[in-house]
């Protein structure tokens, strides 16, 4: 958990409207667990005010170079341009200054070693699953990624998952890539085959709700990574709360997405109608 004032190493558009940014972050890799996130903003004169939360896609290190440049640790985020903040990020160049806070929040619990692992990613929601996949693979678990999206532009980084040893299954609503249909259909099929699996999901709220219903129906353990509007990212503003299980008007039980989450055991959440902050979807920014 460090407050970085650092620079952009690279910032590329990878599919229409989705970017990949590499940021210099010395000392970051050793402290991060899969599913944690960062709060990021360009170090400009307040074009937007608050930092924006982003999942950590991966961390890495550039080797030292002969011209004397030392080894440089970095992290990578994948982000979609949905509003002003992400638009400004997308216009940053190598060497531009950014401010980054992280790693933040509670990441994924790796679950029971040896059991089948199914990761369900919806669009940009796949971001936190990459490091999770790596961690699970490296301790020997079998990992499958079910990657869904509306169309081919929503399908990201699949080859990178495969390279790391994750089996991937792609589906799109419009059939422009992989199987046609909802990713939840694929999930049902896979759970039919691997009823002992553990599921890890991140994506738009309607998808998460559907995944939760499927997993609850079969008694399959599920962890979800949620989004919420955040001001601070550290538990100070109380802007990012979601309803915990047992929440009621008279005995409210709010949990901070930034601190108790963003990854929650699905059984800790109230999956009632308005379970999760409308905020996370209000702007159509739900991915």
């Amino acid at each position, binding site marked *: 958990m460090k407050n970085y004032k650092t620079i952009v190493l690279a910032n590329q558009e990878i599919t229409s409207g989705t970017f990949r940014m590499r940021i210099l972050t010395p000392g970051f890799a050793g402290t991060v667990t899969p599913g944690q996130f960062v709060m990021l903003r360009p170090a400009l004169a307040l074009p937007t005010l608050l930092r924006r939360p982003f999942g950590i896609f991966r961390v890495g290190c550039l080797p030292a170079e002969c011209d004397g440049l030392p080894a440089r640790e970095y992290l990578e985020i994948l982000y979609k341009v949905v509003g002003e903040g992400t638009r400004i990020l997308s216009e940053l160049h190598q060497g531009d200054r950014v401010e980054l806070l992280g790693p933040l929040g509670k990441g994924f619990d790796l679950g029971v070693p040896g059991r089948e692992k199914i990761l369900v990613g919806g669009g940009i929601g796949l971001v936190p699953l990459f490091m999770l996949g790596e961690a699970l693979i490296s301790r020997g678990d079998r990992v499958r990624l079910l990657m869904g999206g509306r169309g081919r532009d929503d399908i990201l980084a699949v080859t990178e998952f495969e390279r790391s040893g994750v089996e991937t299954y792609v589906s799109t609503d419009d059939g422009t890539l992989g199987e046609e249909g909802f990713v939840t259909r694929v999930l049902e099929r896979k759970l039919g085959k691997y009823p002992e699996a553990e599921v890890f999901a991140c994506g738009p709220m309607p998808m998460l709700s559907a995944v939760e219903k499927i997993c609850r129906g079969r008694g399959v353990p599920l962890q979800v990574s949620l989004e919420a509007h955040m001001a601070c990212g550290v538990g100070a503003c109380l802007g990012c709360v979601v309803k915990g299980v047992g929440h009621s008007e008279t005995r409210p039980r*709010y949990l901070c997405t930034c601190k108790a989450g963003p990854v929650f055991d699905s059984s800790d959440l109230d999956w009632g109608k308005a379970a999760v902050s409308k905020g996370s979807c209000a702007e159509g920014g739900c991915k």
Partner: protein
Amino acid sequence: MSCQEKKTMNVVRPSLAVEIAGIRMKNPVMPASGTFGYGEEYAPYFDLGRLGAIVTKGLSLNPKAGNPTPRIAETTSGMLNAIGLQNVGIEAFLADKVAYYQNFDVPVIANFFGNTLEEYGEVARRLSDIPEISAVELNISCPNVKQGGIVFGTDPRAAAQVVALVRKSLNKPLIVKLTPNVTDITVIARAAEEAGADAISCINTLTGMAIDVRTRRPKIANRTGGLSGPAIRPVAVRMVHQVVQAVKIPVIGIGGITCARDALEFLIVGARAVQVGTANFIDPGVMPDIIDGLEAFCLEEGIADINDLIGSLQL
């Protein structure tokens, strides 16, 4: 390094210490209530011992759930919040949080509110006995809670009533925090002073609203929220200036402070100290930066004691 050394050898470090209602502070910089949790949340980012004071999030008699979400929305150079004063309640605060403050040599100011006059009095009594609490800040200005704050904070008689009651129930310095959503803030400030306030802090948030044009819904579930951040600074500086002229007790300036220069605006118009709110969210290291910046400014300007800067406005 030699530069550093030179500084400490040849130049006397300016004194940043200020005193408000008997509370001595190392420097005039503290967090604004509700933007710094109970302090712990920001401890990983800097030594809380550097602060002039710590101000807690708003406490109430009973735990309070707060408002439904979305609770926050960014606006141009500002943010709206309608957290709804979610807090653990005075019991849990005393049981779980207070002990933590012993780790730091920093006065702690407990911000609190009530939904009724009785509640205000009751919380004041409970806080009286706690040695870790140096002073209290009475929030009569939160625009989010319908039955509570707003009434007291916008009417001079109601304000005087609640201040007088709390004054009677309390054995510590009493800071009264004012709302900017009034025609004439000096009237409320004077009412609070006469009713026994030892200091005034202002401003709280301006009531605002933002609309999601696609869904046609307010961006905040509570419909309206409190506007904070750099956007409101000019209004805050104006009101602090007015209140400083209107009362004899010290004034703490709040509203849109993001750097030392912003803080200086408030000190120059006469604030004895400042609180930093929204800026903590943007940069957790902002308060130590502001403290360093104030020291640097005093050095550059040859000011030995920051008190000489306070109220130095040239008209």
